[in-house]
């Protein structure tokens, strides 16, 4: 297990940000694997600054290193400057913990959080000295695994991944370790990979793409079926029943160089049942599992003492929904670090629970950045997407913040949503102006930053059948906003490049035929595609054309109810007919309540797995309308809406 460090340190004076590659974090371990132990390399396929804070990766790093059968280290995608030097000097991908080569691990496991990192994944595999295609690997190569939200449609990466984990990783990594340890013991020369892959495919939650046969019917997918009788027809996701059993990370990594989210992060709950129809995370992570408040307090206290941070983020998909959020925030702010108040950040903040009280408590310390996500500009549009916050909820939250001393905040919106009209799009500008006007009552320098992203329909959401807006249409809508906000002082507009949105769309709902496209883009130098300075749509369009694939077919067309979707052989627990009904309901602006506080409507996520919500409070948080049923149209929707229902699916809004 030779360290590559002496060779690497020679190159580091020649690259940007060399501290990305040194490790040295507080909390890092430097394991020396013993015979019989399975060594994992956990890789985040983006830069260190983006990847280091990833909580999923840190949780598994700890759990694996606590397992006597396993050791784990970490790696991140080297930036293009180091990548070039490593290739010219013959230095492979390395771990940042002990700086040993990626190829010397038993498992190289990727966290997949964003579609635009897929070419980086191929690059990391290649830089590790592993053949990029599974069929070219043998027993001497590490197994290449992936987990994370993007694995709910792993088909575009099926050619490159030996196995994929669906859902929570806390339990399944131990089971995978045991299977690999058995294989290594029974076959120390590592001859055949077939047996180990076949054994992995039988672990619940593990999908082995090469064990499935794909049949097409012209451009359409006909079926994805197991090649062997002992391989499951459908792979179900893994869900840990109770977050209280998993108080991880216990030793959050504290980097020595600046990263995003550079603060203590404590996950207060997992899952979300607000039911926002565009939100894949909320659909695939059900049910809601709250961490007990005492455990949250303990993790905050221990974490602050150990790390020296003076800021805590209470993380989840919607932290203001946490039962007793007010008390936890106020206890945390008052807990003090070195005699000063602790700053609290609430990412993913729903506006309806951000009250003056919470604002005042957070404002006692250094004020953290505030981001609200109304997602759409009009109440009608928000009914369609089931983000049921009223204009008044938003204005209430914004006024709370300005009255407590904030001067600027960020508002997140999506454009290109189903049924969106120009009135809905321009509603974004109107909301922003109203927010600034409210702020001006409290401070002359009130401003808001409006961030607009093009909507990408995702698998396992009610919008998985929706035809995404074209680049031209998204650009037109952004243009409308630019024109409308030109003379609005105090509003700053930012937008996501619609061309990148198109590529996300191709990959999000793509099938196995896209593997060659991703490989092609990578071989033509397409790295770090989520970084605007490296993104180039032309590379993707050329590759699609070379392989005879149509972006329109993958992205812009509406899918029908009977279409076989590339992820139909995988399951997040959600019944497909529930998703279809919710899709039809959305087109009628029919709302769906939060099942945390109202009766179960059997989406499948709990009932299918014999689990349930763990929520301390029986009532929704005060201060907003959602969850109370107020303002929601719950008229029974027609049982079967004809597919040709005359609605404008995100058209140009004439």
């Amino acid at each position, binding site marked *: 297990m030779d360290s590559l460090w002496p060779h690497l340190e*020679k190159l580091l004076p020649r690259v940007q940000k060399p501290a990305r590659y040194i490790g040295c974090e*507080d909390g890092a371990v430097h394991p020396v694997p013993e015979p019989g132990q399975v060594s994992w390399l956990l890789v985040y396929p983006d830069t260190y600054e983006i990847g280091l804070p990833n909580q999923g990766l840190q949780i598994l790093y700890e759990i694996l290193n606590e397992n006597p059968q396993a050791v784990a280290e970490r790696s991140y995608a080297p930036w293009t400057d180091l990548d070039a030097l490593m290739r010219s000097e013959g230095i492979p991908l390395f771990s940042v913990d002990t700086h040993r080569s990626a190829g010397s691990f038993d498992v190289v496991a990727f966290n997949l959080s964003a579609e635009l990192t897929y070419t980086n994944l191929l690059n990391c595999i290649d830089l590790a000295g592993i053949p990029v295609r599974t069929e070219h690997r043998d027993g001497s190569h590490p197994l290449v695994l992936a987990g994370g939200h993007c694995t709910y449609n792993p088909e575009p990466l099926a050619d490159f991944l030996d196995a994929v984990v669906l859902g929570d990783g806390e339990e399944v990594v131990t089971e995978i370790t045991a299977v690999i340890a058995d294989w290594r013991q029974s076959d120390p020369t590592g001859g055949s990979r077939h047996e180990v892959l076949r054994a992995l495919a039988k672990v619940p939650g593990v999908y082995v793409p090469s064990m499935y046969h794909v049949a097409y019917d012209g451009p359409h997918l006909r079926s994805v079926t197991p090649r062997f009788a002992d391989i499951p027809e459908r792979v179900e996701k893994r869900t840990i029943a109770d977050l209280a059993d998993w108080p991880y990370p216990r030793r959050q990594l504290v980097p*020595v160089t600046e990263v995003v989210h550079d603060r203590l992060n404590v996950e207060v709950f997992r899952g979300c049942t607000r039911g926002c129809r565009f939100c894949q995370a909320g659909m695939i992570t059900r049910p809601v599992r709250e961490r007990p408040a005492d455990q949250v307090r303990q993790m905050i206290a221990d974490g602050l003492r150990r*790390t*020296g941070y003076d800021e805590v983020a209470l993380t989840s998909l919607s932290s203001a929904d946490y039962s007793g959020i007010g008390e936890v925030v106020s206890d945390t702010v008052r807990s003090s670090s070195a005699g000063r108040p602790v700053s609290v950040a609430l990412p993913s903040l729903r506006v309806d629970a951000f009250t003056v009280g919470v604002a005042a408590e957070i404002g006692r310390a250094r004020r953290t950045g505030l981001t609200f996500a109304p997602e759409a500009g009009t109440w009608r549009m928000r009914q369609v997407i089931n983000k049921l916050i009223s204009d008044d909820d938003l204005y209430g939250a914004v006024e709370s913040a300005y009255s407590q001393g904030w001067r600027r905040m960020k508002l997140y919106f999506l454009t290109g949503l189903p049924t969106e009209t120009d009135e809905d799009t321009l509603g974004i500008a109107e909301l922003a102006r109203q927010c600034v006007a409210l702020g001006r009552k409290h401070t002359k320098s009130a401003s808001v930053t409006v961030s607009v992203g093009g909507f990408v329909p995702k698998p396992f959401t009610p919008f998985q059948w929706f035809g995404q807006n074209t680049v031209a249409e998204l650009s037109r809508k952004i243009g409308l906003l630019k024109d409308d906000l030109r003379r609005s002082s105090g509003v700053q507009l930012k937008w996501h490049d619609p061309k990148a949105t198109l590529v996300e769309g191709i990959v999000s709902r793509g099938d196995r035929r896209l593997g060659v496209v991703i490989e092609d883009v990578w071989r033509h130098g397409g790295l770090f595609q989520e970084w605007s300075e490296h993104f180039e749509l032309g590379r993707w369009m050329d590759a699609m054309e070379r392989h005879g694939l149509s972006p329109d077919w993958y992205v812009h067309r509406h899918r029908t109810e009977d279409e076989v979707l590339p992820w139909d052989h995988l399951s997040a627990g959600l019944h497909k007919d529930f998703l279809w009904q919710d899709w039809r309901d959305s087109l009628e602006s029919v709302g769906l309540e939060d099942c945390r506080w109202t009766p179960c409507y059997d989406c499948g996520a709990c009932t299918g797995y014999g689990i349930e919500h763990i929520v301390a409070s029986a009532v929704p948080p005060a201060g907003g309308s959602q969850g109370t049923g107020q303002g929601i149209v719950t008229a029974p929707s027609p049982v079967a809406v004809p597919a040709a229902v005359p609605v404008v699916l995100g058209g140009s809004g004439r």
Partner: protein
Amino acid sequence: MIRLRFRYTKLGKIRFIGHRDLARVWERALRRSELPVASTEGFSPRPKVHFGLALSTGFESLGEYLDVDLTEDADEASIASGPDLAAQVTPLLPEGMDVQMVQHIDRGQSLQAAVAVCSWRIEVGGVSPTVLADRVGTLMSAEVVEMVRTRKERTTEQDIRPSLQLLEVDGPVERVTWDEGSLLFAELRTAPPGLKVAELLELIAPEAVESRVCRTHQWIEGDGARQEPLSLATHPPYAGMRAS
């Protein structure tokens, strides 16, 4: 008000963190130490600390300094003595950063302004001792060494010879990553015109495959003698603190 001066190392992998990162590392370590560190006023209070001469990212050091102001009401008796405080703070820092000494000092000239000379130990990879010694001899025997410098798009010629106090080649040095290398000791003055280590290496070893640079000492001059801001040789440490 109490001001503490820390002397510490920056060795090994941690040498690749830059100045801003170093400041953050210290900030967190000081919070964990629970020393009553004074804060700046304002919207975003920061601890009142003063760094000495910046060290280039990638250079090692055997003697870096940090001055830390404690709060007005800090109680001297409650603060650990120098060696104890050093032992208490070192585990809060990354590997390669060891606190060698802490002393109570009088508030005076800033570290940056006080240090007149730095001593450097430089491993020059890919250049033989004979070749390097030859170039060093030529450079040191010159009376004037003109160097073209560009600052804000203005090009000037400066004589950097006064900044060269000492250059000495001390035989070969080996590393796995190069075949032949030389060990060079340098003493460079900080006052203008000044000469950076990188500039020196560009003058005498432009073909080096790698250079390993370590600042071994920083010197303050006065009354014809020189001393370090905190000298490790002049134990017992912390005398100042206990005497006051």
